[in-house]
């Protein structure tokens, strides 16, 4: 097991390196730092001096890969690739183009993101599993058919509509909770209720339908028939046999997204004005702050790979039939 985990961790290093090189190419080769400087300073009437000083302030004034102006080993380290890209491996994100420390901002902003993402995940899981189990109980009836149709209808509505509609109905017409904003501590609850509810509702369609297929797949297996043949009631069959076994794919599916919860949701956070990592990313995209976008790309990749690793480990833990090779 340990050997397996170590091998998996080692395998993720070349992948992260690949991500790193890709972002480097995207941000520094496709468009030179000069382009970025001109973009930020305004396109017209920019003096070369202004471009140079902009680059110098942010450390973009070095060569990309190889610095001939300094001696020895520094030829490789005094470069944009080393300073800006490879430093990400140490989780040194540097400062954003507007001068703030990205690492500090991330550590501050991940908590509001988690405060939304975790309840959405947990409540959503509970709601979806209950609905799916209920539908599985009524399988091959009109209730089953119309529930699936309802799920497809709910899936077909854009997530944006749930947010805009929910905000309008609950906050603007009924004045139940504030439209947007955030607060520290327990005061945050009134700001979080609506985004969480909307997040759960938005996920019901796809989630319930997916879990229903998982349950139905399980219900058709031989051991369920045996259980029924023993004379167990449908309730016991569903809860003790089907639910337990169907939880394996459900939970391993959840594990892969666990680390990504830190990243927050772009849309929800920006609509509700929650200072999490999602709105951080959106603000960076809108203000064209490349340093932040680069840091978030890298962070996201690390978390995704962590998720894959956790998934593989959790498979072996919940299902003894899975052998590590």
């Amino acid at each position, binding site marked *: 097991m340990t050997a397996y985990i170590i091998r998996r961790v080692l395998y993720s290093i*070349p*992948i*992260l390196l*690949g*991500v790193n090189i*890709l*972002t480097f190419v*995207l*941000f520094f080769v*496709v*468009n030179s730092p000069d*382009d*970025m400087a*001109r*973009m930020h300073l305004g*396109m017209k009437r920019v003096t070369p001096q202004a471009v140079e000083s902009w680059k110098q302030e942010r450390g973009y004034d070095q060569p990309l890969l190889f610095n001939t102006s300094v001696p020895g080993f520094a030829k490789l380290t005094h470069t944009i690739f080393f300073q800006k890209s490879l430093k990400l491996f140490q989780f040194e994100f540097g400062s954003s183009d507007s001068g703030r420390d990205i690492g500090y901002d991330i550590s501050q902003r991940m908590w509001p993101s988690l405060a939304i993402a975790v309840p959405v995940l947990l409540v959503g899981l509970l709601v979806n599993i209950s609905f799916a189990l209920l539908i599985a109980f009524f399988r*091959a009836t009109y209730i089953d058919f119309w529930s699936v149709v309802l799920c*497809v*209808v709910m*899936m*077909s*509505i*854009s*997530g*944006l*509509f749930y947010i*805009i509609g929910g*905000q*309008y109905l609950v906050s*603007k017409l009924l004045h139940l909770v504030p439209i947007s904003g955030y607060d520290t501590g327990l005061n945050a609850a009134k700001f979080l209720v609506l985004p969480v509810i909307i997040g759960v509702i938005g996920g019901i369609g796809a989630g319930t339908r997916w879990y229903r297929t998982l349950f*139905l*797949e399980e219900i*058709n297996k031989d051991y369920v028939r045996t259980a029924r043949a023993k004379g167990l009631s449908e309730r016991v069959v569903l809860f003790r046999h089907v639910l337990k076994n169907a939880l394996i794919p459900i939970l391993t599916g959840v594990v892969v997204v666990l680390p*990504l919860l830190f*990243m927050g949701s*772009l*849309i929800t956070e*920006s*609509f509700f004005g929650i200072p999490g990592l999602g709105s951080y*990313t*959106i603000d960076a*995209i*809108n203000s*064209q702050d*490349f340093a932040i*976008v*680069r840091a*978030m*790309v890298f962070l*996201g*990749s690390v978390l*995704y*790979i962590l998720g*894959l690793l956790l998934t593989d480990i959790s498979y072996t833990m919940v299902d003894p039939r899975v052998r590590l090779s």
Partner: protein
Amino acid sequence: MPQFVVLWTDALILLLVVLALGFARYAAGRPHLRGPWRRVVRSRVGMGTLVVLGFYLVVGLLDSVHFYPPASDDDISGQSAPGEVMSLFDSLVPELRMRRETTYSAPLATHLYAKETIELGDGTATRGFARLKFGGAHLTDPAVEKTGDLIRLSLSGLLKGVAFSLVVGNLILMFLAVRAGNSFGTQAKHVLSGRTEVPWRVVLSTLGLMFVLIFWSAELASKYHLLGTDKVGEDVFYQSLKSIRTGLVIGTLTTLVMLPVAVLLGIMAGYFRGWVDDVIQYVYTTLNSIPGVLLIAAAILMLQIYMSNHENEFNSLVERADLRLLFLCIILGITSWTGLCRLLRGEALKLREMEYVQAATAFGVGHLRIIVRHILPNVLHIVLIAVVLDFSGLVLAEAVLSYVNIGVDPTMDSWGNMINSARLEMAREPVVWWSLAAAMLFMFTLVLCANLFSDVVRDAFDPRLRDSR
């Protein structure tokens, strides 16, 4: 003579249509592909949604033929600035395109939505709701005449729609009767009682419903702004219709762009195994591990810089917007090809152990030939299901991306851009709701139909799922 312009996406759409027709021909001659399609065609949900999708497709295709209108000063189209690219669809609905108000007006309104200072004939000014230039302009006293006029227009639209559907329906029935060798009466009885193999009753009723809707909306839209106007006074109904093309392009071209790469790499990884497999797996794991939205954001940011640095390379705004749309498709494709690639790899791994492939290898058939003759035809259904399944998700993704400003060009009509602007409109007092509602309605219909249709296609092609029901 209009001078035709072929935009990049137009050319690709044309290619897609040609490919689809070619595939249809190919599939018609092969029972293992024709069988599942026959099941799709026999499904009531499948045919009903197919008809609705067909209408979207027609609008999208009409909107994909672009040309410079012939320069003439005397007719209406002379109002458009010279050099403005028009589409065939635009020329079919000139009144929707040309009738611009000054700002917001509610659906079917005759007055503007906000008060403004109106200059009266005698030189004095009052504050009030100004009359619209075009919406209901034929009425002398809107307060009295409007309701009656709306009812009259609706009735005439509905009647025309019913009449047209009856004509079309009877023509189809006649065709069916001739083909089946029945008399018209028997055939009609068969269809109406739902006893035909293909659910013609569903097809005909959906067609009829769509025609009635189209005639009704055309009748109202000819005199009013059916779905109101937006901030700069443009007709929202027209915007929603124009957005259809954007949605379809995103939904289909993205898959088309990524298809060759995904199919080639997926099959190669599964077929050759060894280091080829390792390299390809490495590539897609790396790409997959970057969160999609962020990769798109990064790429679009880079494109924006490139475009603002090379402004004079683009002849017109339309061309620029089009290139951005194509680029968005490519980027979306890059983030979404990995799933299909993995599926194909698994399938190719399975297929290469099949007896017929082993036999071909033993006979000394080359790799390329084996892949083309034996592997590719047997994974086609997976490719097809992926194309259909991805569509609705991509249409929804466009809206989200445009909302974050990393979607299509802001000058391009798209449901995402409409929703994006609606965000501020919902905060206004009184609320401007029609842009949002229109975008949602059109998008919802398309996505719902696509979802239902893809379910039918998947069930038809995937025997494992079918048996478990």
